[in-house]
């Protein structure tokens, strides 16, 4: 098959949308945090915790949606930890974020080993199955790509719509955006910046965890160490690339995933002339490149990473 023909096959776009799904959840999660003024570097660890929590719930006998809920709760708990340290206490968001990633990751591995001391290869679960939407999934290429996915992928797209609607059409969203731009204006309205930011970090972290759970409960059917593999950091780049806007970030995530799916296929076609590691590097290199490209016109939320103390300016 020709390298360009790949781009017009349905199976390629089905894979791209599947690869995009966890990124969409986690990117929306990070976007909410940053829109409220908090950089959440706990993302990589929170996704690991979510991947484990969702999978383990199902393995222990829960149903799939319970697994998603447990993952979200686990994420929210780490979000609460992150938010407590960075919002009311105003600690360095860089250091706390890395700390939360280290803690969430190591705690996950600890619990995994504790719960499954004897296993050599992790047990499998029955993951979410594709749920083709009648009619729409028959539309060539685009319909197949978008409408023959698992329910969690549909939830990812729904999440983008909800996040966009809440951020731009509701008073809560206005308060979140203002908390990231001009927190004293929020306080002047009688709204607590602390509450808004903590809430945003908890909700955002829950979404990151669901993104992680997508990997163990929809893309694959088991939990492996280091399976997040930098996806969290890539999502942080996607938020910048998407100019902190849900729609643009969604397009960024899909473009990124399409590129990722494409490099896998190119890798198979190259027949081993180019080392496979070069292809595997591409997603990370692409993220750095994307950051450089948008850096000049990036308009960060003005209060991003600036702790807010009541009564101070």
């Amino acid at each position: 098959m020709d390298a360009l023909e790949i781009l017009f096959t349905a199976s390629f776009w089905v894979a791209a949308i599947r690869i995009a799904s966890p990124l969409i959840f986690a990117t929306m999660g990070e976007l909410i945090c940053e829109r409220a003024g908090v950089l959440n570097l706990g993302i990589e660890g929170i996704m690991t915790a979510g991947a484990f929590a969702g999978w383990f719930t199902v393995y222990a006998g829960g149903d799939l949606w319970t697994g998603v809920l447990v993952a979200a709760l686990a994420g929210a708990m780490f979000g609460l930890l992150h938010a407590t340290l960075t919002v009311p206490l105003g600690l360095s968001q860089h250091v706390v974020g890395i700390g939360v990633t280290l803690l969430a990751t190591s705690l996950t591995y600890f619990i995994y080993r504790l719960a499954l001391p004897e296993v050599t290869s992790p047990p499998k679960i029955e993951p979410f199955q594709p749920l083709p939407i009648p009619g729409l999934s028959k539309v060539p290429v685009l319909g197949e790509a978008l409408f023959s996915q698992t329910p969690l992928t549909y939830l990812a797209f729904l999440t983008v719509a909800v996040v966009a609607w809440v951020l731009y059409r509701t008073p809560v969203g206005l308060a979140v955006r203002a908390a990231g731009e001009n927190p004293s204006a929020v306080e002047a309205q009688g709204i607590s910046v602390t509450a808004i930011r903590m809430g945003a970090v908890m909700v955002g972290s829950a979404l990151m965890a669901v993104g992680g759970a997508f990997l163990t409960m929809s893309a694959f059917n088991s939990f492996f160490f280091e399976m997040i593999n930098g996806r969290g950091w890539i999502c942080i780049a996607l938020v910048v690339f998407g100019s902190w806007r849900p729609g643009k970030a969604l397009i960024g995530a899909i473009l990124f995933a399409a590129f990722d799916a494409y490099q896998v296929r190119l890798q198979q076609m190259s027949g081993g002339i180019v080392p496979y590691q070069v292809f595997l590097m591409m997603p990370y290199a692409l993220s750095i490149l994307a950051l450089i490209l948008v850096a000049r016109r990036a308009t960060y939320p003005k209060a991003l990473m600036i702790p807010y103390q009541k009564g101070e300016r």
Partner: protein
Amino acid sequence: MLSRSHLKSLEGIIMRLEPKPAPSLALTLLFPVAAIVATLLITSLLVLAAGASPLSVFYLVAKGAAGSQFALLETLTRATPLIFTGLAVAVAFRAKLWNIGAEAQLYVGGIVTVVLGTGALPLPSIVLIPVIMLVAMIAGGLLLLGPAALKTRFGVDEVVTTLLLNFIVLLFVSMLLEGVLKDPMGLGWPQSQKVIAEAQLPRIIQGKRLHYGFVIALVSAIVVWVIMKKAVLGYEMRAVGHNPEGARFVGIPVNRVLMKTALLSGGLAALAGFSEVSGLKGNLTLDLSPGYGYSGIVVAMLAMLNPLGVIASAIFVAGIFVGADAMSRTAKVPSYIADVMVATSLLTMVVAILLTRFKVRWR
């Protein structure tokens, strides 16, 4: 460059920027101790969840870390790379250059060591080892120079770029180990050839694993301490970290200081890779570092970014890892408890530092 009078005015700025007086040594030691006590209390819940007694588990960890000559030497061996990465992070964080890429810089140091140390340079030890160290430091420094330049030129957050580079460099190492650096005698295992005898750091005690990399680490800590405390660059770095605008106002070339910081920080992290290959492992593999770059962040924070403190905190963190390995062989608590303890101590430490700031504010 800065003149003497610049330096004087700079001192004035720094004094004003640091409102609280330098805490006494006793108080300084109190923060990490408080953080460690809090960490033990928190993680004892996990030990209880594992069905073991926290006191006996922590005793086994301590015994495994320092209970015998073997244990102690093993802890110091494990502390060696952590001193280097801890110093790398301490230097960078002091100037608020968020280098989370010590892991990648470490591997670059390892690459340089096997490229130059497997016979390419037929030199005596006394020349070869300094040459390898210098080239490794330059290579590691250059790797961090990229993200630092992207930060100053384009405003690209160096946290994300250094993190992403960790993945890229590890894949690059994997590529080398399956390609040009592959050991033909490695039975298909991805590993490089062993370095020649002239490129090896000798062992401190015959027949034990502790090597002269540990001594180099100690010397590095002292050198970095002198730079931070006595050299103009140290003043500049702290001024840039405290208040970049203020530093720029008094004529400090902020961007150039960040570049120098990047070179120093990346270079120190690369020495960790050099020391592990040259002193301990002998060759480069994909598991050269079990996350020393990331643990270096904890080491630096526990030391409150003090280069001499890094020695103590690196030995402490290494002790937890070595002790937990020994403990998990007898008790049924997974050795990942060490990673949890280290991560928790990072968070308790930043809280402990904050609590003292409140004290100052309320006085």
